[in-house]
């Protein structure tokens, strides 16, 4: 059986997702995503919900948030804090490794 090769779309920083796209991709209600936005955990572009555009990494963020809620029982403001702190750790770690390079050369 010959099989065709599928070409997918890479969801990267340049990809834009609507509220509907994001809900479908996470199989979760729009209300839950809206609450994450209200907590500041997701930052879509656009003023009205129907025009919201989420960047590609919002998908990763939203799914991480879902797992944190499911596995650790954290509420949404706790999730927003955890996501911010995880981001901060990542930034600090990459700055630290940058610093190590500059300091040695």
């Amino acid at each position, binding site marked *: 059986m010959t099989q065709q090769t599928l070409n997918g779309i890479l969801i*990267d920083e340049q990809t834009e997702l609507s509220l509907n796209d994001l809900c479908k991709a996470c199989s979760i209600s729009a209300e839950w995503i809206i609450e994450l936005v209200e907590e500041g955990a997701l930052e879509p572009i656009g003023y009205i919900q129907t025009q919201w555009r989420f960047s590609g990494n919002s998908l990763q963020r939203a799914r991480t948030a879902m797992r944190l809620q499911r596995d650790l029982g954290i509420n949404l403001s706790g999730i927003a804090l955890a996501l911010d702190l995880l981001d901060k750790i990542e930034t600090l770690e990459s700055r630290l*490794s940058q610093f190590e390079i500059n300091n040695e050369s």
Partner: protein
Amino acid sequence: MDFKDYYKIMDVEKDASQDEIKRAYRKLARKYHPDVSKDADAEIRFKEVGEAYEALKDPEKRAAYDQLGANWKAGQDFNPPPDWDAGFEFNGAGYTGGDASDYSDFFESLFGRGFGSAQAQHQRGGYTARGEDHHAKVVIDLEDAYHGATRSITLQSPELDNNGHVITKQRTLNVKIPRGVKQGQRIRLTGQGSPGMGNAPAGDLYLEIEFKPHSIYRVDGHDVYLDLPVAPWEAALGATIKVPTPSGPVDLKIAAGTIAGRKLRLKARGIPGKPAGDLYVVTQITLPPADSDTAKELYRKMEQELTYNPRSKLGV
């Protein structure tokens, strides 16, 4: 099948209260959550802890587990004794979270499978609904991110047959992996999720990119790291040496007096893209073994002729 010591996994005493078990679970779950911990074995530990909690949080399951006896040691070959669970009733209170399918054979031999996994709400009737989106992981080699590749992936999905029985359907897809993908990114395949109901379109399939651990490279975002062994004379005198990169070998100049742990940046030799990542070469100075008379002689000569005290800064 190996016996699992759930108390040891949870790091609690055998007579711990339910509250203590809950606290231990919360603590370990936060520590090993794969979204929080970057440890390589975090996911395995997290699942193990989840399974242990699943068995111990329910007093009925815990009592049944305790009845197995204290003589079992973790890792021992285990088969449940016949009728071991006589007199216990598992009401299928459901699983806390996570994937029930992740539990070990040991857990399933005790508590069975089948309860808790009733998420599949199948809608019937004459209305239409878009199919569900699915998520799967695709494991690729680092080199695939440099060159692009085509990967064949096999997916198993439970589906209902005409008689309403759940059957596992297997299908294979050939998927193009674009150049420049990074760990954790997703590829969306439109229409490859669950079929829709009625005339509604099928859901989408999201493939999460995961790099297979590489024997020599480490990946961080779009940057790639390589530990480069260097001979003492190359580090001391400077040298131009051949260095492998995922896009082919390059010549790298090592400055005289290079110390161990120095990071050298090869610009845009990381994962391609806009901007492209960098490749960092971390020097490791290796010691030639003194396994021949010549080698021993050379080391002795260095000892005699170089006035070198590696501990001068320690004041001894």
